[in-house]
């Protein structure tokens, strides 16, 4: 099993993701330069957080034209596992691999802090080790995490159980009070219809070790590893 971490100019969580896969999960991993076309041998592609191209036009808007994105679309089309974290999520939205858009946080500020998310769907390859409704403590760090989709789109997401994570209180209460950025329906993470592409605003790679204040993000990586391994069995 091999992971690839995509590096766009301006990615800044690429090394953190690489570290978690290599040193915490202890799985093989390599960097994929945004101009590389070769994803062969990879079982999972991580689009890391950061500010690809400075987010100068619109988050993810320039990165989605990087040569690697076409290959990631093919990879996803064939059922390959793709996770986009923060800026990676934003790129997946711009590229049309996930539905919806990200607006600026409603408070108009960048927010970096630990938040809680509820696992709305634990029947995915990204959450299979979470209990139904499990509350995870994972940090966010973004300026544009205010997820939006039109009413029909939202209905479709719900009908297909594509909403995977929603912002909540430490006890799991989902309300506007515990919505850090104004995201529609407190949405923090969604998957595509096929269930092989996840976009998530919170950073699981920042919460995969006890010394960083939470190990809950590790469950997401561990679920992926588990899925990839059993698939092989």
């Amino acid at each position, binding site marked *: 099993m091999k992971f690839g971490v995509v590096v766009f100019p301006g990615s800044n969580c690429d090394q953190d993701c690489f570290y978690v896969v290599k040193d915490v999960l202890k799985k093989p991993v390599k960097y994929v330069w945004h101009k590389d076309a070769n994803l062969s041998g990879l079982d999972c592609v991580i689009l890391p957080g950061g500010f690809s*191209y*400075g987010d100068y*036009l619109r988050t993810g808007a*320039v990165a989605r034209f990087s040569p690697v994105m076409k290959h990631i679309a093919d990879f996803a089309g064939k059922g390959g596992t793709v996770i986009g974290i923060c800026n990676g999520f934003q790129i997946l939205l711009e590229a049309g691999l996930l539905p919806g858009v990200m607006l600026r946080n409603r408070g108009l500020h960048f927010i970096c802090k630990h938040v809680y998310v509820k696992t709305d769907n634990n029947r995915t390859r990204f959450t299979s080790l979470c209990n139904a409704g499990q509350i995870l403590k994972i940090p966010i760090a973004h300026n544009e995490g205010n997820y939006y989709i039109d009413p029909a789109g939202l209905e479709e997401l719900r009908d297909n159980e594509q909403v995977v994570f929603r912002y909540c209180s430490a006890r799991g209460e989902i309300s506007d009070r515990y919505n850090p950025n104004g995201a529609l329906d407190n949405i923090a993470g969604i998957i595509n219809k096929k269930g092989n592409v996840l976009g998530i605003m919170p950073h699981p790679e920042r919460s995969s070790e006890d010394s960083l204040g939470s190990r809950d993000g590790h469950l997401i990586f561990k679920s992926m590893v588990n899925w990839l391994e059993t698939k092989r069995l």
Partner: protein
Amino acid sequence: MIVEIYIALKKGVADPQGLTVKHALESLGYKDLADVRMGKLVVIKLNYKDKKRAEREVNEMCKKLLSNPIIEDYRFKLSGE
């Protein structure tokens, strides 16, 4: 009356955003670009029709709040009744 205010970095001030967009457009094949500058568009609907007053007040708004005169220029266009 409607006023459209365009705010952009002064000529000569570095515009990293514009430059990044220029490079992105070039990589999509649009090679003949001399320069790309980014700015803001602010649209204000005024409750009155006195053009002189509008010009005076919009100038004030731009200087006081909407633009940062240290690095930005502005221009505006009045239209409508």
